[in-house]
C-alpha cells in the first residue's frame, strides 16, 4: 500500500538524515518505526505526507508517486498525529475535529455527524466535549481530539509521531488500547514512530528497527526476537524482558524483607 524505494534525505547538519531506505507497508497493518532519537524515523514518516521531500528515491501510495500529487491534497487524505498535538487553541473541540472536512468543503450536516461519531470513537461524549476549548482539556483528552481530527476526513492512513510522548503513563496505557481498537474498527493503516520499546511491541503488527538513517530489520515482534539480524536488534528486543525481570526482583525482594521482619 505504501512503499518507500531507495529513499535518501540529506540534511546539512546530518541529524535525522536517511540513506537509501526501502520499506513496504501493507494495508491495514500497524507498522512501528522504532529507534533512538535522531535515527531518522520521524523523517521517514514525514516523507509519506510530503512534510519532508526526499533528496532521492521514490515514495508510492497505492502505486502513485507522491511527488505527482498536490501536497495539500495528499495531507488531507492522510491522518497526522504527533507528540506536540497542536490543537488550534482558538477553536472548539468540534471545530478542531471539523478542520479537514471544512477544508474539503463538506456540508455542515455531514461535518456535524462526522464530528459526533469521531468524538464517540475516541471516548469523548460529544454533548460534553463538543463546545469546549482545548485549554479546558487534559493532555490525554487533547490527544484524543488530535486523533479524531486526524481521522475526520475518513482517512485510511494514519501517521503517528510519538503520539503518546506527552501524556502520563496511565493515560498512555488507555490511549494505546483505544488506538488498537480504532485501528481494528476502521481498518486503518498506521505508521507509528516511537523510541519506547514496550509501546512498539504492544502496538505493532510489524516493527522496523532503525539506526543512523538505515533500517536494521523489519518483522513481527516474534520474528525479531527469535531471529534477530543484528546484535543491536536482539539487545533492543530483549530490553522489556530485562526490565520486567529487574522489576520483578525489586518487588519480590521487598516482599521477602517484610516477611522476614514479621517473623522476628
Amino acid at each position, binding site marked *: 500500500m505504501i512503499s518507500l524505494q531507495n529513499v535518501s534525505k540529506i540534511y546539512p547538519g546530518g541529524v535525522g538524515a536517511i540513506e537509501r531506505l526501502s520499506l513496504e507497508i501493507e494495508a491495514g497493518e500497524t507498522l512501528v518505526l522504532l529507534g533512538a532519537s535522531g535515527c531518522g524515523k520521524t523523517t521517514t514518516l514525514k516523507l509519506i505526507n510530503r512534510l519532508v521531500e526526499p533528496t532521492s528515491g521514490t515514495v508510492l501510495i497505492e502505486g502513485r508517486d507522491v511527488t505527482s500529487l498536490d*501536497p*495539500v491534497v495528499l495531507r488531507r487524505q492522510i491522518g497526522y498525529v504527533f507528540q506536540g498535538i*497542536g490543537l488550534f487553541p482558538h477553536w472548539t473541540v468540534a471545530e478542531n475535529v471539523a478542520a479537514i472536512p471544512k477544508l474539503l468543503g463538506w456540508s455542515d450536516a455531514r461535518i456535524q455527524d462526522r464530528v459526533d461519531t469521531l468524538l464517540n470513537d475516541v471516548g469523548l461524549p460529544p454533548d460534553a466535549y463538543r463546545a469546549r476549548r482545548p485549554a479546558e482539556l487534559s493532555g490525554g483528552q487533547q490527544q484524543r481530539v488530535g486523533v479524531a481530527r*486526524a481521522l475526520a476526513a475518513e482517512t485510511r492512513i494514519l501517521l503517528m509521531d510519538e503520539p503518546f510522548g506527552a501524556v502520563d503513563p496511565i493515560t498512555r496505557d488507555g490511549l494505546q488500547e483505544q488506538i488498537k481498537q480504532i485501528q481494528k474498527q476502521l481498518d486503518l493503516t498506521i505508521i507509528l514512530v516511537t523510541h519506547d520499546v514496550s509501546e512498539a511491541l504492544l502496538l505493532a503488527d510489524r516493527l522496523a528497527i532503525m539506526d543512523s538513517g538505515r533500517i536494521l530489520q523489519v518483522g513481527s515482534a516474534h520474528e525479531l526476537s527469535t531471529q534477530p539480524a543484528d546484535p543491536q536488534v536482539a539487545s533492543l528486543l530483549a530490553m522489556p524482558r530485562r526490565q520486567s525481570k529487574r522489576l520483578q526482583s525489586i518487588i519480590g525482594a521487598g516482599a521477602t524483607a517484610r516477611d522476614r521482619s514479621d517473623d522476628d
Partner: protein
Amino acid sequence: MGEAFQAQWAHFPNYFAHHVLLTVGALAIGILFSLPLAALALRRPALAPPLLGLSSIIQTIPGLALLALMVPLLGRIGVVPALVALVLYSMLPILRNAVTGANEVDPNVLEAARGIGMTDQQILVRVQLPLALPVLVAGIRTAAVWTVGMATLSTPVGATSLGNFIFSGLQTQNTVAVLMGCFGAAVLAIALDGLIRLGEWAAARRSARLAWTSIGLLAISIGLACLPILAAGFGDSNRPRATVGAKTFTEQYILAELIATKLRQAGFDVTLREGLGSTVAFNALSNGDLDVYVDYSGTIWANYMKRTDPANSEIVLETSQEWLANEAGIQLLGPLGFENAYAIAMKSQAARLKGISDLSDLAEQAPQLALGGDYEFFARPEWREVEAAYGLKFREQRSFDSALMYGAVADGHVDAISAFSSDGRIAAYDLVVLDDPLQAFPPYDAVILLSDLAAQNPRFVEALRPLLGAIGDSQMREANRRVDLDGASVHSAAAELASEIASRARPSDPPPNFGAR
C-alpha cells in the same frame, strides 16, 4: 478667562473633527499597509529584519521633521503630507506586533496546520492571524496613541488639527489655547485607547460580540466627532473657497485673521492654514494650495530671488513683483503699509553702557557677546549678508522660539537678538534696535501675496484691496503688543485693526498702491 475660553472653544469642534479624521485615516491606511507587509515578512523571514529596521528608522526621525520632509517630497501642503507622515509613523508598532504575534504562535499548532493540509494562505488567515490578533491589536493601540500625539504636529504643514491650538497658543502666549489643544489630544488618545482596548479584550477572549461592540462604538464616536466637517461640507458647498496662510508668529496670525474676515465678508468660505514655515507657505502659494498670505519684501528678495545687493524699498518691491509673477506664479497685490524688518536688538541699558548704537559698534564687541536668533534666522541669507558686511563674530549663537527670544535678551541670557521691528515686545522689554548704516538688511515691507487663481478673481482682489497701505508701523506694533503682552486674542486684535481701517477709509480715497510706507 471666560471670554478667552469661549473664543478658543468656538474652534474646538472643527479642530477636533479634523484631528480625529487625520488620526483615524492614518491608522486605517497604516493597518492596510502594515498587514500585507507583515504577511510578506512572515512568508519570507529574511525580509523581516530590513522591513522592521526601516520602519524603526522612520520612527527615529523626529515627528516634526518627518512631517516637514513630506512637504518638499510631495510638493504640497495640507492633509496629504500630514497623512503620509502619520501613516509611516503608525506602521512600526502595527508591523512589529503583527510579526511578533504571528511568530509567537506555538510551532506545534503550525505543524499541525501544515500536517492536516492547510495551504500557506489558510495557515496565515485561519491560524496565525487569529492567534496573533491580541498582540496585533495591542500594536494598533500603541500606534493610535502615538498618532494622536504626532497629529498635533501637522499644523505647520498646513493640516488642521488640535495642533492649531498649541502652535498659535505658544506663539501668542495664549495658555488657554495651548491647554485646550493638549486637553483635546489627551481626551482623544484616552478614548481611542479605551475603545481599542475593548477590541483587544475581544480578541483575547475570542468574543465576537465584544469585538462588534468595540467596532460599533468606535464607528459611532468617529462619526459624531466628524459631524462638524460633514456639516461644513454640506452647508457651504456652493460658496467659493479661499485658503489663507500664516507663518509662525503673532503678526502673521493677526493678519491672516484680518484677511480671512475680509474674505468672509465678501462671501468666501475661508480655511485658515496657520503656523506654516516660510518656505512651506511660499511653495504652497506658488502651487495653489494657498490663495493668500502676507510675506515681506526682504524675505522674497534675499531668500527666493537670492539677491544680496542692497536696494531701497521701491526697487525691491518692483523687482520682486515682476520676479514673483514670472518665476513663481504669485501675484504681489501690494504693501500693507508697515515694515517688519529683521533687525538686531539689545537691552537699551546694556547698549548705552557698552556704547553700542549700530551694528558696526556691535561688531567690535561681538567676540565677548552672545546672539540669540529665531529658528530660521541663522540659516537665512540676510544673516549671512549682515554677518559678512560687518564682520560679526559672536562668542556664542543660540536659537530660540521667537516667542521666547525677547525674554531671553531681557533676562540677560543673550546680549543681542534678531528682533522683528514691528514686534510690540521691543518697547515693552525696553529694547533698542541697532542701526544698520551699511543697509545690509534689505527692506521688509509687508506685502499681500496672491496665488495666480486668486489674483484672477476680482471679488477676491477687491475684498483685500482696502487693506493696502492701511496698516502703519505703530498700528501693527500695537496689535502685536496687545496679543503678546496684554493677552488679547488674535481675533480681537484683528477685529480692532479692521475697525480702525474701516473708520479711516474714505470712499473718495482710492486705495494707495506701491511706496506707501
